[in-house]
C-alpha cells in the first residue's frame, strides 16, 4: 500500500475548533482510495524535517497559547522553505496561516514577527468576525464553493493570491471580499474546524498534490459517494442565501 505522510504541528496547542476533523478526513478518504495515511504529531522542541513529509498541517489556536510555540515555529523557517520548494503541501488554519506572513499586531499593539515566507501581514480588526463563511474558488481549473466557520479578529492584508472570493462572511478583511491564501501547494485560510470534511473536493485536490509528490497514481474515480458532505454544504449555502451556488456543489 502506498504511504502518505502528514506532520501535524503542535496538536496540543492548535486544535481549538475541531481542527482534528481535517486529519480524520485525510484518514477516511485515504482508506477509500487505498492509501495508507501516516500522521506524526510534533510538539515544541521535537525534531522533524518538513521535507520528509507530504503535508504539514497547522490548526488554529488561542491567542495566549501562541507564545508557547512561537520560538519553536520561527526556528523551522529554512526547513519549511526547502520543503515547499520540494513539493510538500502546507495546510495552515487561522493562527497558523497568520504566522507564515511578515508579522501580526496583537490586540495590545505588540508587533510579532512571523516566518516571513509570504508577504502578507495581519492587524487586529475592530471586532471579531464570527460566523459561517462561504467562498468561491478555482484551483487548477476546478471551480469550487467552500464553506466553513470563521472566528478571528485578525485582518490579513497584502494577500496577492487569495484562496477565493467571499460569497458570505468576512474572510481576510471585513469588506475586503477575499479569503485565504494560495501559493503553489500552500493553502492558508480562516475556515477553521473540519474544513476538509465539509469540502471533500478540496480533500481530493490536496491528496492529489501529495500523490504527485510521491508519483503515486491514485484513482479518485474509485471513490465512495460524498452525498452526506454535499447535503451538509448545501444546508449552509441555503442558510446564507446562496441557493444559486448549489449547482457548484458536485
Amino acid at each position, binding site marked *: 500500500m502506498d504511504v502518505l505522510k502528514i506532520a501535524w504541528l503542535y496538536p496540543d496547542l492548535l486544535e481549538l475548533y475541531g481542527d482534528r476533523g481535517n486529519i480524520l478526513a485525510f484518514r477516511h478518504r485515504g482508506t477509500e482510495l487505498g492509501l495508507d495515511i501516516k500522521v506524526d504529531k510534533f510538539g515544541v522542541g521535537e525534531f522533524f524535517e518538513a521535507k520528509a513529509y507530504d503535508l504539514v498541517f497547522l490548526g488554529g489556536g488561542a491567542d495566549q497559547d501562541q507564545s508557547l510555540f512561537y520560538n519553536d515555529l520561527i526556528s523551522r523557517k529554512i526547513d519549511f522553505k526547502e520543503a515547499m520548494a520540494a513539493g510538500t503541501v502546507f495546510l495552515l488554519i487561522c493562527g497558523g496561516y497568520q504566522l507564515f506572513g511578515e508579522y501580526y499586531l496583537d490586540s495590545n499593539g505588540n508587533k510579532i514577527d512571523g516566518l516571513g515566507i509570504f508577504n502578507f501581514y495581519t492587524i487586529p480588526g475592530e471586532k471579531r468576525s464570527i460566523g459561517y463563511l462561504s467562498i468561491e474558488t478555482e484551483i487548477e481549473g476546478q471551480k469550487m464553493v467552500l464553506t466553513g466557520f470563521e472566528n478571528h479578529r485578525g485582518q490579513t492584508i497584502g494577500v496577492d493570491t487569495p484562496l477565493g472570493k467571499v460569497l458570505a462572511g468576512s474572510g481576510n478583511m471585513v469588506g475586503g471580499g477575499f479569503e485565504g491564501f494560495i501559493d503553489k501547494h500552500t493553502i492558508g485560510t480562516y475556515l477553521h474546524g*473540519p474544513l476538509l*470534511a465539509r469540502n471533500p473536493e478540496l480533500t481530493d485536490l490536496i491528496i492529489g498534490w501529495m500523490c504527485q509528490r510521491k508519483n503515486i497514481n491514485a484513482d479518485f474515480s474509485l471513490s465512495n459517494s460524498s452525498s*452526506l458532505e454535499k*447535503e451538509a454544504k448545501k*444546508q449552509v449555502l441555503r442558510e446564507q442565501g446562496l441557493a444559486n451556488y448549489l449547482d457548484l456543489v458536485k
Partner: protein
Amino acid sequence: MRYIALIVGKLLKFIGNKLDKGTSAPGVFAKKIDKKIFSRITYPEKIVVITGTNGKTSTANMVAKVLRDKGLEVVHNTKGANLLGGLLTTIIDHTSFSFRITCDVLVLEVDEATYPAFTKYITPSHLIVNNFFRDQLDRYGEIEVLVDLVNSGISSETTLILNGDDPLVRYLGYKNSENRVVYFGLAQTKYSVSDTEQVREGKFCPVCGSKLNYLYYHYSQLGNYSCSCGFSRPVIQVEAYDVDLKNKEFKVDDMIYKIGYDNLYFIYNSLAAMIIGDEFNISRELMKASILDFKVDDGRMENYLLGQNKTYLNLVKNPTGLNQSLEHILRQEDEAFNIFLALNNLAADGTDTSWIWDVDFEQLKTSNINKFYCSGLRAFDLAVRLKYAFIEEEKLIVIPDLSACIEEARQNNNKTYILSTYTALQRTRRILGSLKENGGDR
C-alpha cells in the same frame, strides 16, 4: 423611585408568569428605573453561587435540597435564568417591600461569563466552581479568557469551593490564596486512565505554560496533575474514593454514599453539595439521605416510551458532556440499541457546530448499535462526523425534521438514547409527549 422600580419589576414578573415567558425583562427594567436598586436590598448573610461549564443546574438543585432537608429556607433561581437579567428577576421576585430577601440562604447558579457583572451587586459567601470545558466558543471566546473573567469577579470575602481535579478551576484557588478555599475531588478510580484521546483544556500549566504531567485522568482534563514549577492538584479536603458506578456508590471519610445515577459528574456535584452541608453544620448522615434521594430533572436522562421501548432524552451542549453521555450509555448496554442525535445551531445551541469533531465518536464503531438517527438543523453535519468515525453508512438514518425522525425511530425494535442540543431538546420533548405511548394522541 426604588418602590416604583420594585413594583414595576414584580408586576412584569407577574405578567411574565401569566404569559409563561420573560425571565430577564423584569430585573432589567427594575434596574433601569432605579440604577442602585440591587445595592439597596438586604440580602441573607449566606449566598451560595455555583458556576462552571457543566453541572451548574444539578449542583445548585442538590445544594438547595441538602439545605432544605435540614429545614433551612432557600431562595433559588429557576433553571436557565443564570444570566444577569434572569438573576436580577429572581432577586426582585423574592424581595419584600421592606427591601429584604427573607430566607436563610440564597442559592444561585450563575453563567461563567456573567460572574464579574453579578458580583458588582452581590458578594457571595460561597462560590462553587465545577469545571471549565470548551463550550460555545462562538459566544464565550477562548477558555482562558473565561477563567480570567471568573477570577476577576472573586472577592476576598468569598469562600471558594473548587474542583481540585480540574487544573483550570484549581488555578482560581492559586490566584486567590488569601481566600478560604475548600477543594473536592475524586481519588484514582477503576475507571481512571493513564492517557486519553479526548480533547482537553488545560493541558498546559496555567501558571508557567509548561505541559502538565498526569498520573491519571478521570475524564477530559480532570485528574491528578502536576507541573515542574510546583503547581499541582492540591490537597483535597472532601475526596471520594472506592467509586463504584455499577453499584452506584462512593466513599468519603469512611462513609458509603449511595447515589441514583451512575456517572462521575454526579459524584462531583454531590461532593460540592457536601461541602456546603459541612459549612452549615449539617450532619453527613442527613446529607447521605439527601444525596440518595436527589432526582436530577430537565434534560438529564428523562424517561419516555418510544413505540414498544424505553427511550432516554439527554441534553448535550459540548464535547465533554457528549463524551460523558456516550460513555455512560456504553457502560450500561449489552443488547443492541440506537443512538439518536439532534443537533441545532441556533444561538442557544452555539452557531458553530465544529465542536462535534472534538467528540470521541470513534468509541461507538465497535459497539452493538443498531441505528444512528441524525436529526435537527445540522443533521448532515452529524452524519458526516459519524461517517468519518468509520461508522458504516448503512447504519446512518438522516432526517433533519425532528418529528419525522422520531417517527422513524419509533418503528425500530430497539431501545433508543436521544442526545440533543438545547433548542432541539424542547421540541423533542414536546413530540415525545404527544405520542400515544406517553399519554398523547399521536
